Protein backbone atom coordinates (compact mmCIF):
# COMPACT_ATOMS: atom_id res chain seq x y z
CA UNK A 1 0.00 0.00 0.00
CA UNK A 2 2.94 2.30 0.58
CA UNK A 3 3.83 2.10 -3.06
CA UNK A 4 0.35 3.28 -3.93
CA UNK A 5 0.89 6.40 -1.82
CA UNK A 6 4.27 7.01 -3.45
CA UNK A 7 2.53 6.59 -6.78
CA UNK A 8 -0.04 9.24 -5.82
CA UNK A 9 2.72 11.58 -4.67
CA UNK A 10 4.52 11.13 -8.00
CA UNK A 11 1.28 11.97 -9.81
CA UNK A 12 0.91 15.13 -7.71
CA UNK A 13 4.56 16.02 -8.39
CA UNK A 14 3.92 15.60 -12.11
CA UNK A 15 0.88 17.86 -11.93
CA UNK A 16 2.79 20.48 -9.92
CA UNK A 17 5.78 20.43 -12.28
CA UNK A 18 3.78 20.65 -15.49
CA UNK A 19 1.62 23.33 -13.87
CA UNK A 20 -1.64 22.14 -15.41
CA UNK A 21 -4.04 20.87 -12.80
CA UNK A 22 -6.35 18.92 -15.13
CA UNK A 23 -7.76 15.47 -14.30
CA UNK A 24 -6.22 14.08 -17.49
CA UNK A 25 -2.76 15.26 -16.41
CA UNK A 26 -3.25 13.72 -12.99
CA UNK A 27 -4.11 10.40 -14.63
CA UNK A 28 -1.12 10.64 -16.97
CA UNK A 29 1.13 11.47 -14.03
CA UNK A 30 -0.21 8.45 -12.17
CA UNK A 31 0.52 6.15 -15.11
CA UNK A 32 4.04 7.62 -15.50
CA UNK A 33 4.64 7.18 -11.79
CA UNK A 34 3.43 3.60 -12.03
CA UNK A 35 5.94 2.91 -14.80
CA UNK A 36 8.78 4.52 -12.85
CA UNK A 37 7.96 2.55 -9.72
CA UNK A 38 7.76 -0.64 -11.73
CA UNK A 39 11.25 -0.01 -13.14
CA UNK A 40 12.61 0.74 -9.68
CA UNK A 41 10.89 -1.91 -7.57
CA UNK A 42 10.05 -4.82 -9.88
CA UNK A 43 12.82 -7.07 -8.59
CA UNK A 44 12.50 -6.25 -4.90
CA UNK A 45 10.25 -7.78 -2.29
CA UNK A 46 7.53 -5.16 -2.63
CA UNK A 47 6.40 -6.28 -6.08
CA UNK A 48 2.99 -7.30 -4.75
CA UNK A 49 1.70 -3.87 -5.75
CA UNK A 50 2.38 -4.62 -9.40
CA UNK A 51 0.66 -7.97 -9.45
CA UNK A 52 -2.30 -6.51 -7.60
CA UNK A 53 -2.84 -3.32 -9.57
CA UNK A 54 -3.95 -4.99 -12.85
CA UNK A 55 -6.31 -7.16 -10.83
CA UNK A 56 -7.91 -4.11 -9.25
CA UNK A 57 -8.41 -2.61 -12.71
CA UNK A 58 -9.86 -5.91 -13.95
CA UNK A 59 -12.17 -6.05 -10.95
CA UNK A 60 -13.43 -2.51 -11.54
CA UNK A 61 -14.18 -3.30 -15.19
CA UNK A 62 -15.88 -6.58 -14.27
CA UNK A 63 -17.95 -4.82 -11.64
CA UNK A 64 -19.06 -2.04 -13.98
CA UNK A 65 -20.10 -4.69 -16.53
CA UNK A 66 -22.10 -6.61 -13.90
CA UNK A 67 -23.68 -3.40 -12.64
CA UNK A 68 -24.87 -2.40 -16.10
CA UNK A 69 -26.17 -5.87 -17.03
CA UNK A 70 -28.00 -6.36 -13.76
CA UNK A 71 -29.51 -2.87 -13.89
CA UNK A 72 -30.79 -3.62 -17.37
CA UNK A 73 -32.29 -6.90 -16.21
CA UNK A 74 -33.89 -5.17 -13.24
CA UNK A 75 -35.35 -2.48 -15.51
CA UNK A 76 -36.86 -5.13 -17.78
CA UNK A 77 -38.29 -6.98 -14.78
CA UNK A 78 -39.84 -3.87 -13.25
CA UNK A 79 -41.41 -2.75 -16.50
CA UNK A 80 -42.77 -6.08 -17.72
CA UNK A 81 -46.49 -6.50 -16.98
CA UNK A 82 -46.02 -9.86 -15.31
CA UNK A 83 -42.86 -9.64 -13.27
CA UNK A 84 -40.54 -12.62 -13.59
CA UNK A 85 -39.58 -13.15 -9.96
CA UNK A 86 -38.13 -16.17 -8.23
CA UNK A 87 -36.81 -14.67 -5.00
CA UNK A 88 -34.94 -16.67 -2.40
CA UNK A 89 -32.47 -16.40 0.45
CA UNK A 90 -29.34 -18.46 -0.16
CA UNK A 91 -26.57 -19.27 2.30
CA UNK A 92 -23.18 -18.86 0.66
CA UNK A 93 -20.21 -20.41 2.50
CA UNK A 94 -17.28 -18.02 2.74
CA UNK A 95 -13.62 -18.73 2.13
CA UNK A 96 -12.57 -15.20 2.95
CA UNK A 97 -11.00 -14.79 6.34
CA UNK A 98 -10.36 -11.10 6.91
CA UNK A 99 -13.02 -8.62 7.96
CA UNK A 100 -12.06 -6.22 5.19
CA UNK A 101 -12.50 -8.93 2.57
CA UNK A 102 -15.94 -9.94 3.83
CA UNK A 103 -17.17 -6.35 4.02
CA UNK A 104 -15.89 -5.73 0.51
CA UNK A 105 -17.58 -8.86 -0.85
CA UNK A 106 -20.88 -8.12 0.91
CA UNK A 107 -20.88 -4.56 -0.40
CA UNK A 108 -20.19 -5.70 -3.96
CA UNK A 109 -23.01 -8.25 -3.78
CA UNK A 110 -25.45 -5.66 -2.51
CA UNK A 111 -24.44 -3.13 -5.15
CA UNK A 112 -25.25 -5.55 -7.95
CA UNK A 113 -29.00 -5.21 -8.53
CA UNK A 114 -30.99 -8.33 -7.83
CA UNK A 115 -28.77 -9.54 -5.02
CA UNK A 116 -28.73 -8.23 -1.48
CA UNK A 117 -26.50 -9.49 1.29
CA UNK A 118 -28.74 -9.75 4.33
CA UNK A 119 -26.43 -10.92 7.09
CA UNK A 120 -23.27 -12.78 8.04
CA UNK A 121 -23.25 -15.54 10.64
CA UNK A 122 -21.47 -14.78 13.90
CA UNK A 123 -18.63 -17.20 13.08
CA UNK A 124 -18.15 -15.44 9.71
CA UNK A 125 -18.55 -18.63 7.73
CA UNK A 126 -21.85 -18.01 5.98
CA UNK A 127 -23.12 -15.06 4.04
CA UNK A 128 -26.89 -14.93 3.55
CA UNK A 129 -27.81 -13.42 0.21
CA UNK A 130 -31.29 -12.49 -0.99
CA UNK A 131 -31.66 -12.77 -4.74
CA UNK A 132 -34.47 -11.84 -7.08
CA UNK A 133 -33.87 -14.43 -9.78
CA UNK A 134 -32.96 -17.74 -8.18
CA UNK A 135 -32.78 -20.53 -10.73
CA UNK A 136 -30.68 -23.02 -8.87
CA UNK A 137 -29.18 -22.52 -5.42
CA UNK A 138 -26.02 -24.48 -6.20
CA UNK A 139 -25.40 -22.55 -9.40
CA UNK A 140 -25.98 -19.28 -7.59
CA UNK A 141 -23.49 -20.23 -4.87
CA UNK A 142 -20.80 -21.20 -7.32
CA UNK A 143 -21.42 -18.03 -9.36
CA UNK A 144 -20.90 -15.87 -6.27
CA UNK A 145 -17.81 -17.83 -5.32
CA UNK A 146 -16.26 -17.95 -8.78
CA UNK A 147 -17.09 -14.49 -9.99
CA UNK A 148 -16.95 -12.35 -6.87
CA UNK A 149 -15.16 -14.11 -4.07
CA UNK A 150 -12.23 -15.26 -6.19
CA UNK A 151 -11.61 -11.71 -7.41
CA UNK A 152 -12.02 -10.14 -3.98
CA UNK A 153 -9.64 -12.73 -2.59
CA UNK A 154 -7.02 -11.93 -5.19
CA UNK A 155 -7.18 -8.26 -4.29
CA UNK A 156 -7.64 -8.23 -0.53
CA UNK A 157 -6.04 -11.42 0.69
CA UNK A 158 -3.42 -12.26 -1.91
Amino acid sequence: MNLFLVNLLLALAWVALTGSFQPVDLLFGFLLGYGVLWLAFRSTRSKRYFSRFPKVVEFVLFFVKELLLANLRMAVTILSPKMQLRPGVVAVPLDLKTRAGIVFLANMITLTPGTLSLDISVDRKMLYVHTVWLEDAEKFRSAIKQEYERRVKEIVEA
Partner: protein
Amino acid sequence: MQEIVIMLLMLLGAILIFLAGVGILRMPDVFLRMSATAKAGTLGVGLILTAAALHFNEFGIYARVIAIIFFILLTAPIAAHIIGRAAYFDGVPLWEDTVQDDLKKHYRISDHALYSGELPSEEFLVPQKEADDFSEEPE
Protein backbone atom coordinates in the same frame (compact mmCIF):
# COMPACT_ATOMS: atom_id res chain seq x y z
CA MET B 1 -20.76 16.31 -28.87
CA GLN B 2 -20.05 16.70 -25.20
CA GLU B 3 -23.50 18.20 -24.69
CA ILE B 4 -25.07 15.08 -26.15
CA VAL B 5 -23.07 12.82 -23.85
CA ILE B 6 -24.07 14.91 -20.84
CA MET B 7 -27.71 14.83 -21.85
CA LEU B 8 -27.66 11.08 -22.37
CA LEU B 9 -26.05 10.47 -18.98
CA MET B 10 -28.58 12.73 -17.23
CA LEU B 11 -31.49 11.07 -19.01
CA LEU B 12 -30.26 7.56 -18.22
CA GLY B 13 -29.73 8.48 -14.56
CA ALA B 14 -33.20 9.96 -14.30
CA ILE B 15 -34.74 6.89 -15.96
CA LEU B 16 -32.98 4.59 -13.51
CA ILE B 17 -34.20 6.56 -10.50
CA PHE B 18 -37.71 6.60 -11.97
CA LEU B 19 -37.55 2.81 -12.41
CA ALA B 20 -36.48 2.47 -8.79
CA GLY B 21 -39.63 4.38 -7.83
CA VAL B 22 -41.81 2.15 -10.00
CA GLY B 23 -40.06 -0.84 -8.46
CA ILE B 24 -41.03 0.26 -4.96
CA LEU B 25 -44.67 0.37 -6.00
CA ARG B 26 -44.74 -2.92 -7.90
CA MET B 27 -42.52 -5.28 -5.91
CA PRO B 28 -44.36 -7.67 -3.57
CA ASP B 29 -42.18 -7.64 -0.41
CA VAL B 30 -39.62 -5.59 1.52
CA PHE B 31 -36.55 -7.44 0.30
CA LEU B 32 -37.54 -7.23 -3.34
CA ARG B 33 -38.31 -3.54 -2.93
CA MET B 34 -34.88 -2.94 -1.51
CA SER B 35 -33.35 -4.87 -4.38
CA ALA B 36 -35.13 -2.55 -6.78
CA THR B 37 -34.19 0.72 -5.10
CA ALA B 38 -30.86 0.61 -3.31
CA LYS B 39 -28.91 -0.26 -6.42
CA ALA B 40 -30.78 1.40 -9.28
CA GLY B 41 -30.61 4.57 -7.22
CA THR B 42 -26.85 4.23 -6.76
CA LEU B 43 -26.12 3.94 -10.46
CA GLY B 44 -28.66 6.65 -11.29
CA VAL B 45 -27.14 9.14 -8.87
CA GLY B 46 -23.68 8.20 -10.11
CA LEU B 47 -24.62 8.90 -13.73
CA ILE B 48 -26.23 12.25 -12.92
CA LEU B 49 -23.21 13.33 -10.87
CA THR B 50 -20.86 12.28 -13.67
CA ALA B 51 -22.89 14.35 -16.10
CA ALA B 52 -22.65 17.36 -13.77
CA ALA B 53 -18.88 16.93 -13.48
CA LEU B 54 -18.49 16.73 -17.27
CA HIS B 55 -20.62 19.83 -17.67
CA PHE B 56 -18.58 22.00 -15.29
CA ASN B 57 -15.26 20.36 -16.21
CA GLU B 58 -13.38 21.71 -13.19
CA PHE B 59 -10.97 19.91 -10.96
CA GLY B 60 -12.82 20.85 -7.77
CA ILE B 61 -16.08 19.47 -9.12
CA TYR B 62 -14.45 16.23 -10.28
CA ALA B 63 -12.89 15.72 -6.86
CA ARG B 64 -16.20 16.26 -5.12
CA VAL B 65 -18.11 14.01 -7.51
CA ILE B 66 -15.60 11.20 -7.03
CA ALA B 67 -15.84 11.62 -3.25
CA ILE B 68 -19.66 11.59 -3.33
CA ILE B 69 -19.81 8.48 -5.52
CA PHE B 70 -17.25 6.75 -3.32
CA PHE B 71 -19.25 7.42 -0.17
CA ILE B 72 -22.53 6.39 -1.78
CA LEU B 73 -20.93 3.10 -2.85
CA LEU B 74 -19.63 2.65 0.68
CA THR B 75 -22.78 3.51 2.64
CA ALA B 76 -25.77 2.43 0.51
CA PRO B 77 -25.10 -1.33 0.91
CA ILE B 78 -24.69 -0.96 4.66
CA ALA B 79 -28.06 0.77 4.95
CA ALA B 80 -29.64 -1.97 2.80
CA HIS B 81 -28.07 -4.68 4.94
CA ILE B 82 -29.28 -3.13 8.21
CA ILE B 83 -32.82 -2.55 6.91
CA GLY B 84 -33.05 -6.07 5.45
CA ARG B 85 -31.77 -7.67 8.64
CA ALA B 86 -34.09 -5.63 10.85
CA ALA B 87 -37.04 -6.48 8.60
CA TYR B 88 -36.19 -10.18 8.76
CA PHE B 89 -36.27 -10.57 12.49
CA ASP B 90 -39.08 -8.17 12.91
CA GLY B 91 -41.08 -10.98 11.30
CA VAL B 92 -41.85 -9.27 8.01
CA PRO B 93 -43.01 -12.17 5.84
CA LEU B 94 -41.21 -13.04 2.63
CA TRP B 95 -43.31 -13.00 -0.51
CA GLU B 96 -45.44 -16.16 -0.81
CA ASP B 97 -43.71 -17.30 -4.01
CA THR B 98 -40.24 -17.09 -2.47
CA VAL B 99 -38.40 -20.22 -3.58
CA GLN B 100 -35.95 -20.74 -0.78
CA ASP B 101 -35.22 -19.33 2.66
CA ASP B 102 -31.91 -20.45 4.10
CA LEU B 103 -32.13 -17.92 6.91
CA LYS B 104 -35.11 -19.66 8.49
CA LYS B 105 -34.35 -20.93 11.98
CA HIS B 106 -30.86 -19.49 12.01
CA TYR B 107 -31.49 -16.37 14.06
CA ARG B 108 -31.61 -16.78 17.81
CA ILE B 109 -34.52 -14.65 18.94
CA SER B 110 -33.11 -13.72 22.33
CA ASP B 111 -30.00 -11.90 21.11
CA HIS B 112 -30.48 -11.70 17.32
CA ALA B 113 -27.26 -13.63 16.76
CA LEU B 114 -27.02 -15.56 13.51
CA TYR B 115 -25.63 -19.10 13.57
CA SER B 116 -24.67 -20.92 10.40
CA GLY B 117 -24.99 -24.58 11.46
CA GLU B 118 -28.13 -26.69 11.64
CA LEU B 119 -29.92 -25.64 14.79
CA PRO B 120 -33.58 -26.63 14.53
CA SER B 121 -35.14 -25.51 17.78
CA GLU B 122 -38.00 -23.30 18.87
CA GLU B 123 -35.51 -20.77 20.11
CA PHE B 124 -34.52 -20.01 16.54
CA LEU B 125 -37.92 -19.59 14.95
CA VAL B 126 -38.65 -15.98 14.05
CA PRO B 127 -42.45 -15.59 14.13
CA GLN B 128 -43.76 -14.22 10.86
CA LYS B 129 -46.65 -11.82 11.13
CA GLU B 130 -49.10 -11.93 8.31
CA ALA B 131 -50.63 -8.49 8.82
CA ASP B 132 -48.49 -5.58 7.63
CA ASP B 133 -48.44 -2.01 8.86
CA PHE B 134 -50.17 -0.65 5.78
CA SER B 135 -53.37 -2.65 5.76
CA GLU B 136 -56.01 -0.67 7.58
CA GLU B 137 -57.90 -3.47 9.28
CA PRO B 138 -56.22 -6.77 10.03
CA GLU B 139 -58.57 -9.61 9.36
